């Protein structure tokens, strides 16, 4: 009996190119060889939010996504995360229960009064 695959693809893997036959397996292998590793691609995805990458980098990222639905999802989700965080201040008061203690408020009030004298 063959050993279990070291990194099996779950059924939810919807990468466009998967090594299901000889041809696609070679193609997948080739793309894997010419594009950066996933650990590198996730870093590139983050850096792209800071500075737009050059066309060569963009091209290798796109090619990588053909064989890796995980990096493709990661990019989409990190972009969504950015949209979420930009809107965070509008919602922060609803979800942040933190209040200043009354004692601290009194301290601040007396401090303000002192400074006026």
């Amino acid at each position, binding site marked *: 009996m063959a050993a279990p695959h070291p*990194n099996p693809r779950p059924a939810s893997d919807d990468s466009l190119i998967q090594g299901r036959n000889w041809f696609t397996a070679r193609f997948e292998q080739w793309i894997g060889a010419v594009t950066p590793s996933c650990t590198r691609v996730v870093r590139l995805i983050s850096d792209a*939010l800071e500075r737009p990458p050059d066309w060569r980098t963009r091209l290798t990222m796109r090619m990588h996504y053909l064989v890796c639905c995980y*990096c493709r999802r990661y990019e989409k*989700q990190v972009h969504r*995360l950015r949209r979420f965080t930009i809107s965070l201040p509008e919602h922060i008061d609803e979800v942040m229960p933190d209040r200043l203690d009354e004692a601290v408020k009194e301290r601040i009030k007396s401090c303000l009064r002192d400074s*006026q004298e």
Partner: protein
Amino acid sequence: MSEHHFAKQTEPLISPELSSDPDRWVDEHADFLYRYALIRVRHREVAQDLVQETLLAALKNREGFGGRSSERGWLCGILKNKVCDYFRKLGRETSMTDLDGLAGEFSEKFVGGGWIHLTGPKEWKPESDEVMHRAEFWATLRRCLGKLPDRVAQVFVLREVDGVSSKEVCEITSISESNLWVMLHRARMGLRECLEVNWFDRPSGDRK
């Protein structure tokens, strides 16, 4: 502002239209300012001190508030500068050791430089942004932010929530651009993972 004529009659130097009751500032805005500071600096005592410093500075510079913006917006602007001052001070006092501790944090998600397929990013449902109307979602995001290391969260909030440019974040926090990019990457990775585990990958009744 007529209600303050009576409260501040003992202050002849300040014209009535400029006088705002500092007690009222505390009652009306202090909690808001406190939350604003707390999400950014993450330490209760520091946040309390910043609120106090902000109101003191506001009191000294009341002429600065010409009624152009809301009172809260004006105070918030002062606080924003105080928060940046705090980060500047912090940058000089602490070294960048947070990063070392983060280096291997997500290594269990990868094998040989590639995602472990079974634990890699899952498709987030729903694809639409209707989650943004859910208060529980924002509570989850806030909790996830709370799990990041202090420095990583601080630069992330400056950059992504306040929209400060990379260059300025580097200047305020005295870190190099390459360190900043690593920190932002770690923050994004951590938050993405946390949101998936605690929100998107849970049945809707079990989200928290």
